[in-house]
């Protein structure tokens, strides 16, 4: 028994555990929180700037000497009123929304079929087809829009929303296909074999087994596609000319910058309102989004 008694002096002398916890807390602050805060400031400052600019009166906006540039003294809704009632902003918003939904739906439809075929049917050369689809994604839109413009003109789609609904899939399909290939891979193949024995056809398997299990993947592919088409600039600039058919990113730049006069307040209000739908989308589906990128179907 004697050799198990603890010497009280030994305990008070060594403050090892406390020292260690102080050390680890300090280390955590330096290695995790400080970099995180810096990162957040860099990321969020543009949004902050956009938000306060949208609510600043012009006098404050241009006079930094008498006003604090990082704060608003007299907030106003003038910029937003001007944007909504003196421009076609609501119209642009509706067009953008329609185009984004249309191209997202088309791309998801094509990508689901492509990804399923490449991942599950394992036809001869499926790996190469997968690579080829990915290679298509690597062609930059700034080059691709020149030949695409020819196609759009030939088909008589110039200056119609279909010009965008049908060209956005050129970069959405490769991306969504690759995302979905990865997701389908995480669904156990036995489920499909079992359904095959149960009497399901390939399309029934896709519809009743694979797709319901791939919902998180579909949602994240959908969010990606929606965001990319919502923010797309170069095709929208090239293929649409009439003011009322423009999408938000193009319209606020071409309609709210008159000559060399930047209407900063309205510009930022337009950008702020324009980023809200995407932000709301992310907010609802962020969990699916993360789970689909980090993997695995849970039984």
């Amino acid at each position, binding site marked *: 028994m004697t050799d198990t008694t603890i010497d009280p002096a030994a305990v008070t002398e060594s403050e090892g555990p406390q020292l260690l916890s102080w050390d680890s807390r300090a280390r955590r602050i330096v290695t995790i929180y400080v970099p995180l805060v810096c990162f957040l400031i860099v990321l969020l400052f543009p949004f902050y700037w956009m938000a306060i600019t949208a609510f600043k009166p012009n006098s404050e906006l241009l006079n930094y000497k008498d006003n604090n540039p990082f704060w608003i003294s007299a907030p106003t809704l003038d910029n937003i009123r001007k944007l909504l009632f003196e421009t076609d902003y609501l119209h642009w918003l509706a067009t953008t929304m329609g185009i984004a939904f249309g191209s997202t739906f088309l791309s998801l439809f094509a990508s689901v079929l492509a990804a399923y075929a490449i991942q599950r049917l394992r036809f001869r050369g499926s790996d190469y087809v997968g690579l080829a689809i990915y290679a298509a994604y690597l062609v930059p839109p700034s080059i691709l829009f020149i030949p695409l413009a020819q196609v759009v003109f030939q088909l008589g789609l110039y200056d119609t929303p279909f010009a965008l609904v049908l060209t956005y899939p050129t970069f959405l399909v490769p991306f969504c296909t690759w995302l979905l290939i990865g997701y389908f891979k995480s669904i*156990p193949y*036995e*489920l499909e*074999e*079992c*359904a*095959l*024995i*149960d*009497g*399901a056809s390939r399309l*029934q398997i896709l519809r009743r*087994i694979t797709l*319901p*299990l791939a919902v998180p993947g579909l949602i994240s592919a959908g969010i990606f596609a929606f965001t990319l088409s919502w923010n797309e600039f170069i095709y929208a600039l090239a293929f649409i000319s009439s003011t009322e058919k423009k999408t938000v990113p193009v319209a606020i730049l071409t309609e709210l910058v008159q000559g060399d006069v930047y209407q900063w307040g309205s510009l930022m209000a337009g950008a702020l309102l324009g980023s809200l739908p995407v932000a709301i989308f992310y907010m609802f589906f962020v969990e699916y989004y993360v789970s689909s990128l980090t993997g695995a*179907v*849970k*039984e």
Partner: protein
Amino acid sequence: MATVSIRDVRKAFGSTEVLHGVSVDVADGEFVILVGPSGCGKSTLLRMIAGLENITRGAIAIGERVVNNVAPKERDIAMVFQNYALYPHMTVRENMAFSLMLAKAPKEVIEAKVGRAADILGLAPYLARYPRQLSGGQRQRVAMGRAIVRDPQVFLFDEPLSNLDAKLRVQMRAEIKDLHQRLGTTTVYVTHDQIEAMTMADKIVVMNGGNVEQFGAPLELYDRPVNLFVAGFIGSPAMNFVRGQVEGEVFRSGAVALPLPPGLRGAAMAGRPVVYGIRPEHWRLDGQGIAATVQVVEPTGSETQVICTLSDARMLGETRMICAFRERITERPGQELRISPDPAVVHLFDEASGARLN
């Protein structure tokens, strides 16, 4: 119900052949187990019966019909997978009804069949649950229920018990056997566990390296294994093998001499390298036989297993001999036992080919 006839079936993945001409006949209502070490091709063969793998050469017939080019769903089979393959987004009821729904069976028929299967398997209280809310044993039962509702000609099981803990495995083993006796459906079952094979099967197919080593009733395989592989694979603890040669009318390994099995003429194989096989329970303690030095004594109550070494004998693989006695053993490690084999039940194999000689 139907017979399953496998005729000289070969399977190649690219240029690698994994099944080298397998022939097995499963009679109507029989419970046949494919057993062998991993990579022996047993699961591939099962998947070929199911139609999930193409048949490179040969033919598989279910009933009278050759099914080589018949889609899985047309083969009238049901399969239970190792990880159960339950549809995670469907309830137990939906899982079991899925195949009937696809076949567009009337609602009342589906209800009746699912209800009956649930009663048989004790799943009635869980029909509204999702697979993730069930224990391993319950999931296993749902997988079987899904097979039962289809009332197929053949049940296929692919290592269905390997994900369960030891106690549950024993329980499910009895349940599957009982189910087979009640339904009488022809069953092909794959496992790597020879105890499962011994306890459940009407007939066992022992496979190794893409070939069938032996096909027969469990005790036939145990009592008269046709070669060294089957002898070593079937039985736990495994058969002991001693290397040596025949001299006169005895088997000799170093200084150890053992009696030949009855009916075997020693003169015909004098000097030939052979392997003497004896199961642990076929050693007798008689106070006179050969000397064995005790290393470990493992009493289980009903019997006592003794791990010992035979001085001077050359063993095959293992260097130690396992004996199982009905008697209680009082000897301590290091002490000597006198043991002799029961010559009526010993086995003799050719060392080069591994084939049985007696």
